[in-house]
């Protein structure tokens, strides 16, 4: 696990939570470094919102601790924790203007008026809303409201910023621009931040590290590169980006896929002989060539027949049915350079090579899931 600095700003320790009979969180552990951005990524119902609310003190865990800058705040109410929450709806106070919203936390702390005014000026300049300072929230655009919400939380120097699906209510183009702006802003002010999202692209772009949650369990935490390229579970592989899955059996540091044997990648875990495994590879990690032309930089997987070709803008999406015992289809994406260098036609026989793949233990023995592509 990499961290920007060695100081731990937030520690989530063994946190579990049930709502009635349903387990929402199960033994969650992670740290956030000073100035680090962590993204909690998961589908709806994965428990990511509950973690955020537990850190903020809006929900109490059944067990476990929340430690903010070395202080155990697990039993403190929300108002004594000093977190800054940016809600999906921004939750700006409708009867207060921009200045009053930003100054609210300082007024509650009974700071001198001059200090409050100075801080408001600083923050309004930081978020670039000088001309809008007297406006009420309803007169601002979604992006402006969000910046006010961030400034409002920054005003009282929060222990951590917590973003609850902050881009959910915005349209796609603005979303991409805003998340870059906000990442740049957070890096400038160096405040530890936790985002929650179900959007993997957003997670990859925003986070210094990503924590993938599934049904209340932390599946993996790592840098965007690690999570994308070295998924530790099938769920992570299929939730973060698209992935092809094939069933195999380990034999002497090789993986047998019927008549084909693949060399085990060096960073693979230790598997015993005869253990059932899944090999996982990204659509862009597949290389297609004429049967005689596959170079040595790739491990040959099998031959296959091109079944479908779709033009998807920046790349081409191809479905290839492999010549393996169960004839699983796989999905391949090819960049423009490839489609020009080696054009394909439906029904064509190709050699399928893998640039990179991961080997994961196969916990579920349902063989029908082997060829599943997500």
């Amino acid at each position: 696990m990499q961290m920007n600095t060695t100081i731990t700003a937030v520690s989530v320790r063994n946190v579990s939570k049930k709502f009635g009979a349903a387990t929402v969180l199960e033994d969650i552990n992670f740290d956030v470094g000073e100035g680090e951005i962590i993204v909690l990524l998961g589908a709806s119902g994965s428990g990511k919102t509950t973690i955020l609310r537990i850190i903020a003190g809006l929900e109490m865990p059944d067990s476990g601790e929340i430690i903010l800058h070395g202080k155990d705040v697990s039993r403190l109410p929300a108002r004594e924790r000093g977190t800054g929450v940016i809600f999906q709806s921004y939750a700006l106070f409708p009867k207060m203007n921009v200045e009053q919203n930003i100054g609210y936390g300082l007024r509650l702390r009974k700071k001198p008026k001059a200090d409050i005014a100075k801080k408001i000026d600083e923050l309004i300049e930081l978020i670039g809303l000088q001309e809008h300072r007297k406006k009420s929230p309803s007169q601002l655009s979604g992006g402006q409201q969000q910046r006010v919400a961030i400034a409002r939380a920054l005003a009282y120097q929060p222990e951590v910023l917590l973003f609850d699906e902050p881009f959910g209510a915005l349209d796609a183009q603005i979303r991409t621009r805003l998340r870059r702006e906000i990442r740049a802003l957070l890096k400038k002010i160096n405040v530890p931040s936790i985002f929650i999202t179900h959007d993997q692209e957003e997670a990859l772009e925003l986070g210094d590290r990503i924590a993938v949650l599934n049904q209340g369990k932390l599946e993996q935490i790592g840098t965007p590169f690690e999570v994308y390229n070295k998924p530790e579970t099938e769920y992570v592989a299929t939730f973060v980006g698209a992935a092809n899955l094939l069933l195999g059996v380990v034999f002497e540091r090789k993986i047998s896929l019927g008549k084909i044997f693949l060399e085990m990648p060096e960073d693979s875990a230790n598997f015993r002989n005869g253990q059932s495994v899944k090999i996982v590879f990204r659509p862009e990690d597949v290389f297609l060539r004429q049967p005689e032309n596959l170079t040595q930089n790739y491990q040959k997987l099998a031959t296959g027949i091109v079944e479908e070709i779709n033009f998807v803008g920046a790349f081409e999406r191809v479905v290839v049915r492999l010549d393996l015992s169960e004839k699983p289809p796989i999905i391949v994406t090819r960049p423009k350079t490839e489609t020009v260098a080696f054009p394909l036609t439906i029904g064509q026989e190709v050699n399928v090579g893998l640039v990179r793949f991961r080997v994961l233990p196969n916990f579920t023995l349902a063989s029908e899931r082997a060829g599943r592509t997500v």
Partner: protein
Amino acid sequence: MSENVRHTSGFDVVKPLSITTLIVVMLPLVLLPLASIFIFGTSSGLASFWAALAAPEASFALQLSIVTSFWATIFNVVFGLFAAYVLSKYNFWGRNALIVTISLPTAIPTAVAGFALLLLWGPYGTLGRLLEPHGIQIMFTAAAIILANIFVTFPLAFGVIKPVFDTMSKSLEEASATMGATRWQTFWHVTLPSLRGAIVGGALLTFARSVGEFGSTILVSGNLASRTQTAPLYIFAKFNEGQVEAANAIAIVLALFSFAIFSILFFARDWLETE
């Protein structure tokens, strides 16, 4: 498409026809009765109108109506606010039953309400009987009028305030809490300002309804001139005595008063909501 074109470009006979129908229906039912109060009240000159108003019994009745309505309004707005807060925020067993109970007084005939109050607080009533030995009498005093007003207008403020509470985003209160506010600070700085329109609206409705209350007041007040006689009771009493001018003068005041309140409600609503 062709039908749409006809509606927008040709002369639309439906519009003047429907507006005329509306006015013709309202004329005998609402507009003319109101107009006749003013026509009759001013027919013998403004001087006699003022004289009728200046009669001690008349001005007492008006004052009593305003004072008792004021206290009933204060109580029902504060209580309505509290009840709306509790019933919006907390979910508990019997919550819906409580909501129905609060709303019940609107459906009960006002004479029944007055009768019910008499049975409870009257000299021989369940509670009145216990109070009487201590020299405390509720019925046939201004307190009884306030009680009757409270009962009859009980759900009005609550009914206006609760929907605003229901639609208020929970994240506003949560945001305030994470920023360091106590529950009271959150209520005062965040929740209450958003309710301003509903509070003013609820108060005006309660007050207007209280001032006009007749059925329950006539039972519980004793209808004693210059002691427990409210403005509507005065109108009724003077009418029975054949003093139509005196009754009419107060009727004009009450009608203007209602008109003013509903104008505020109608025209100031936007201002109250947005400011």
